[in-house]
Structure formats: C-alpha cells, structure tokens
C-alpha cells in the first residue's frame, strides 16, 4: 500500500467512502482494524512529495512492448505497484476469438510486457484473467496472449467461467448494482492491473478499463437487463478499482466495436495511469470514434465515474507526459 498513489492523494474532494477490492482483501485478512487506523494517514503519506514527480497519465509512443514498459516506467516503474511476493491479476481484453489485427483484444505484447515487469518486480503469481464471450479455448489461442505469456515464470493465462471460480460479494460503494459474483483470484490478488485495448462499444461508447471489469464477474447479463448499464459499470468499478491501468492503443478499433469488424486506426500508443477514469478519458480524447472527435463526458460511464469521485475525466487539468519509446 505504501507505494501506491491514487487520485485521492491529490484531491481531497474525492470521498473514500466506499470499500474497494483492496480493502475487501485487507478486511478478509483480518487487518481491517489496521486499515481503519491508517485511513487518515493515506492522505499524508510521507512519500507524497515523490508522487508529485509522476504524471497522472503517462503516454508512450512506439511498438507495443517498448511503449508498455516506457509508460509504466514514467509512472515510477512496476515496483511502485507490485511488491515482492504480491499476487497480481492482469485483466486484458481477450474475450473474442480474433487475431490481434482485429483490435478487439489487447495486444499480446502488451500483456507479456506487463507480466514480465510484474515478475521482475517480485510478483509471486501473475494471473491473466478474463471470462470470455467466445469459446475460451479459441480466445486464448487466437488472441495470442497465452502463447505470448508462456514461459514467464509464475504466470498463467486463464479464461474462467465455472461457478466455483467465483464468489459473491457486496459492492459497498454501489448505488444500484450492489452484489455480484467476482473471480476468487481477483478477490485474493494484491494488485489489479487493467490492460484493455482501445475500442469502441455500441452500447457504452467505448470499452476501456472500466467496461473491461465486466470480464471479471460471472453474470454480466443483469448489468444490461436489470440496471442501467453505465451506472452498473461504475458500481462495479467502485469495487474493482485497478491499481494500474494500461490502455493498449497500439491499434484502436474506432468503429463497430466491441466485435467489429470496424475501422482499425494505428495508434502506436500505450498509456498508463493510476486512475482508471483518467486513462479512459484520455483515450477517448486521443482518437476519433466513428470519425468524430468525442469528449470524455460524452461517454456516460466515464462522466458518472467522475461525478461519483472514482477518478477524474478533466484531463485538461491533469499532468500528462508523453515520451517516445
């Protein structure tokens, strides 16, 4: 916890009233008391000054592998997210039985780079997880992600869907969508990394880090049918708040997502942030969607997340640094 800085460190306006996956984990570990005691302390962490050196959003151009490493480096390197012995979950998009050129799944090199960095930072276990839409086996194969991550020690790429891999939890910060089944491995993880591909989405405008969290739960259907989908996504993200978000914009599916085929733009960019909302907002801002420029607040779940204090979409006020990998 000590090394992690979130938007809350900077902006005391944002409430911390909801319990995220991280606090859930701590509570499960029986150190809820510790958390309660240190809750105030987070605001005045001694390393805060150092955090100021890191941008809110790090943006790196170049080939996927290098760009991923550079962008995370700009945020202070993986070791500022992953401590020795940590269990890490990486959530890419690998829900479609498509090859990387379709831009519907995260580029395998991005996932590989992240997994390698986690292992280098001392992670004891790296799980790359998704609950796929298409046949699990074909997704793992065609996306190239399993192949790319084979041979990295302690790393597994898994598509899980059976009930036994999930546990029902309350989402204390949620307004409407207040309980759901989440992968146990995610609940037990010390670090959650969102690694979405940048793509459009017919129902939610874009599908980035926040929308991607739907891949870690069992029953997504109710988010469509019972709730307002955009509100439900924000409800889910109050709990599944990624510690690090890395958006793969090496290729951008700018139209007819999430399935495509649509217009695939060469983005050659990877951007990283501690703030899911900021990362998503910046991605929306960077590229044309259906040939038009879209403002972050035109994406309902980004706007709602901002309004509810989950993160910031006012990218004009954020420290964004660009570097060439």
């Amino acid at each position: 916890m000590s090394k992690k800085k979130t938007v809350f460190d900077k902006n005391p306006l944002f409430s911390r009233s909801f319990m995220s996956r991280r606090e859930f984990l701590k509570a499960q570990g029986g150190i809820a008391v510790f958390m309660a005691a240190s809750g105030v302390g987070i605001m005045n962490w001694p390393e805060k000054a150092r955090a100021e050196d890191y941008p809110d959003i790090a943006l790196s151009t170049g080939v996927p592998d290098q760009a991923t490493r550079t962008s995370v480096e700009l945020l202070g390197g993986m070791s500022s997210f992953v401590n020795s012995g940590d269990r890490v979950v990486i959530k890419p998009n690998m829900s479609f039985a498509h090859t990387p050129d379709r831009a519907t799944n995260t580029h395998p090199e991005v996932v590989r780079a992240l997994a390698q960095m986690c292992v280098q930072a001392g992670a004891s276990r790296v799980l790359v997880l998704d609950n796929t839409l298409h046949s699990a086996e074909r997704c793992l194969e065609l996306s190239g992600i399993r192949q790319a991550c084979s041979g990295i020690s302690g790393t597994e790429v898994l598509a899980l869907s059976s009930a036994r891999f999930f546990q029902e939890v309350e989402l204390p910060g949620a307004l409407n969508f207040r309980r759901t089944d989440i992968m146990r491995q995610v609940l037990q993880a010390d670090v959650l990394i969102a690694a979405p591909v940048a793509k459009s989405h017919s129902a939610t405008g874009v599908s980035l880090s926040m929308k991607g969290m739907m891949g870690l739960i069992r029953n997504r259907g109710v988010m469509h049918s019972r709730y307002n989908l955009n509100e439900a996504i924000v409800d889910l993200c109050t709990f599944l708040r990624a510690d690090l978000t890395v958006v793969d914009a090496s290729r951008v599916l700018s139209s007819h997502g999430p399935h495509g085929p649509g217009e695939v733009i060469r983005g050659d960019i990877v951007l990283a942030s501690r703030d899911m909302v900021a990362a998503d907002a910046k991605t929306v801002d960077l590229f044309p969607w259906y040939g038009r420029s879209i403002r972050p607040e035109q994406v309902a779940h980004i706007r709602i997340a901002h309004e509810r204090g989950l993160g910031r979409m006012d990218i004009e006020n954020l420290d964004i640094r660009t570097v060439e990998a």
Partner: protein
Amino acid sequence: MNFKRTVQAASLLFFLALLLLAAFPLKTWFPTDFFLRLDPLVFTGTLISSREWVSALAPGLIIILLTLVLGRFFCAYICPMGITLDISDRVFRPRYNNSFLSPEKSHGLRRVKFWILFFILGTAIVGVSTVFLGSPLSLITRFYGLVIYPLAVHILDLGLDSLFFFYSALGLERLAYIEFQTPRFATQVFVLLFFAAVFSLVLLSPRFWCRYLCPSGAVLALFSVRPLLRRTVSSSCTECGLCQSKCPMQAIEPDPARTRHQECIVCEECVRICPEKAITFAPGFRQADRPAPYWPQRRRVLASVLGGMGTALLLQTGVREVRSDTAPGNLASKFLIRPPGALLEEDFLGRCIRCGQCMKACPTNPLQPVWFESGILGLFSPKILPRRGPCEPLCNICGQVCPTGAIRSLPVLEKTWARMGTAHVLREKCLAWAWDRKCLVCFEVCPYAALELRRVPDISIPVPFVLLDKCAGCGACEFHCPVQAESAVVVEPMNSLRLNKGSYIEEGRAQGMSLEADPDREREPPEDILTEEDSPEALPPGFNY
C-alpha cells in the same frame, strides 16, 4: 478373467473411448462412429429406408457375413449393449429366484424379435427409419452419451469443485483450473426409464433383451442357421444338464448335444462349466447336431412388415409430421432447427438412427433430442436449442460423427454456409427496442455480423435489426441475450438451407446469402449508422448528448 470377459472388457472400453473422443475438435483419424456402423440392423434398415447404398455402413454387412462363419459372436463379444446387459445382469440378478421363464414361454417369446425386426423393416420400406426403436447400438450410444456421460462430467466437476481449496493449497493450480461444462439433455429421463426396464428384465431371464427382443440379433439369427464354427458335444457327456441351465441364451435343446445355433452367441459358457469337458466349438459339418432351423412364419413376417408399413403410412398423415417443402399448409415447428448440414427433412428422418452421437460431440450443447415436436416419427432426432448454446461457426463435428450421413460431413467453410434458420428480434421484449436500455449484446456476439444497429424515431439509442442475407441462424444472439426467460432475439428454422448434395456456398450465394463467418478474415465494416450533422442524434452508438 476368461477369454470372453477380456474381449468384452476391451470392446466396451473401446466403445466408450470412441464415444469420449467424439468431441470437437476431433482428435482421432479412427471413425468414432465405428461401433454404430457395425450394427447389422443399422445397415439393413438404413439401406432400405434411404434407398441408397451407404458405404459407411458396410461394416454391418461384414458382421452379417462373418456370422455365416462364426455364428452370433457379435452379440457376445462386440455389442456394447450385450456387454452392458451382462454387467447389469450380474448386478440385478435375483439371488434366490432361479425359476426363470419356462422353456415353452421362452420358445414363444423368441419370435418377438423377428416381429420387431420385420416391423422396423416395414417402416423402412415406406422410407421411414424406426431403426432407433430397436437398434442396440443406437440405444446404447444414447444411453452412454446422453445419460451416463453428462452424469459423469457433472460428478467430476462437483468433485473438482469441492476439492478446489485442497488443490489450491497444494499448489496444484493447473488441476484446479480445469473446467468441465456439464452437458445437459432433454428426454434423458425417458432414456433412463427405458434402460431401467431393460435391466430389470433380468428378473425374467438373463440377456432378456438379446434373447427375445433385439432386432439386430434377429438379423444375425437369420444368418446363423448353420455357422461353420459351432458347438459340438462329445460322447463323454453325462447329460447332467448344467450347460442347459447356465446358457445365457437358452440355446441348448433338451438333448444337450443339440444346439439352436440361431440363438447361440458363441460365448462358450457351456465349454467352461462342463464338468466332463465334453463341449468344444469347432468347425462342424455333421447334420446330426443340428436341430431344424427356426424360420419365422411367413404369415407373421408378412403381418409384421405390413404392420410396419401401415404404421409408418398412418403416422405420415399426422398433422405435425414435418415435410421439407415450403408450400402453404406444411406445419413446421418453430423450434425444430436441424443441425447444419442435415439432409432434407424426409431424407434426414430416413437416415437418422437417433444415436445421439452428434449431441454428445457438439461442444456447446445446443443439440438436443426432440421429443414430440416433429411428430412421432421425429422422436429423439437432433434439434438445435440456441438458448442452451450457440452453434460454433467453425465447428463441423456433428456431421463428422454422424454414422449414417443424416447430417452431411462438411468442410468447415461449407458448414458455415449451411444455414440453420433466421433470427428475429422480439421488439416487445428487446431491452433497446422496448425499454431504451443500452444493451446490444446480440450485435456484439454475432459471428456473422448479421446484426445491424439503426436509429429509429422515438428511441434514444440505436436498435438492432437482423440482416436476412447474413444470418446463419447459429443462435449466438439468442444464447447471449440477457433478457430473461425467452430471449428477445430468437432463431426459427425459417429459410434454412437443406441440401442433399452440392455446395452450400454455391447455393447460398445463388440465394443472395453472404455467410462469411471466418473471424480471421478481413471484413469490410458494416454500413455506417450515423445520421449527418451535429444534432444530438448524430453521435455514434453508445455516446451520449
């Protein structure tokens, strides 16, 4: 373990292994429908009902020819039904009651199997296949594939489930992450009840099914009147009668030297138990050993054949019997979606032996046995239930494992064009159409890109439309639709492409179809749905204000 048991165990294990291997992707060059093709009734019945030489079924003919030499060895050593009955007979055999059927009753009952056989062949003459009623291989494949297999997977999955923490603790995570999707099937209770009845017949006699009912056994009995290899009794016989009481087929006459070869399945139980070692199975030519052959009475045969023909003809007048033609007045059940590559309906029903192998093999479990949706003649034939699972565009396993060619074995590309039906949106249930909810899951999941989003007046979000020329009826939309109970987008067999021969691609193109489902292929993005200019409606789908 004697020779018989060893061969039986090997046969049954081989049968079960092939059944397990009948899965997508197919991992063996060996035909997984091998045992089904050995069934002499499947050969004879399908030959007549389909009016075609089906070379895949030739092994059935080979069994018949071998029977001329070896007798009914098939029943004892190969038939998984017979072997299963041997096992169940040992389990359920009454301990204190050996007063089985009297010889007179037994003799009369033996004829029943011939009546069943000729009844089935009678229906086949009309072009209707009722082989499934009695073919032991069809029945036993259905039993193991649709009842036992799902049960085994379910138990295995629950086992993994309950041991999950144990594995995790041991660090055997690879083991822990194995997922089994339990297949689920309709009519499994009926199949189970049928087999419970067959198993319980051991109360009347061992191998009751084989002795009195099995039409495949009847076919073989017709060809084993004087097999070359036959039971011979030497002069050291003391007529103790042990062999008569132990013969599972009651094939030994009151004079123990005489054998009813048509009933003898060459299991050689008598050889093993004879205290005088007086019995051998050897090539025999002597006339004296042979009792008069039993030929079913001509009148009975005629009555059975006519009964079969009459029944089939009568059932064909049923209002629910499905025909292939699309003329008005032909009721096609909206649930009757046949698997891709199924022949024209009449020919399909003439070929399909309802073994359930396609259902077992299908990776996503939409293939289900039909109950009465297509009349009595369609009983147990496969249909697609998209709500249970979508038909995977790049899978062609159902045709590959079909023993009779009722479902054509197609190359993958051809199969993606074998259209099963057409989806349509139930606008009064659709989240987007009826409730202004952002959903459009159907659009997301359609592998054929057959759903299009359009803006319509009075609805704030784009709503889904099905493109007629692109929909293959795979059911991905219906399966994934988050609307509860009945899906808000449903597939009906409308416009299914059924061809007995020729290319689905050519015919589909000629009909104006465009069923490209290869996800790796570059596709043109669908037409843009944007309206022009900067009005709020002009935003692309999913964006607000």
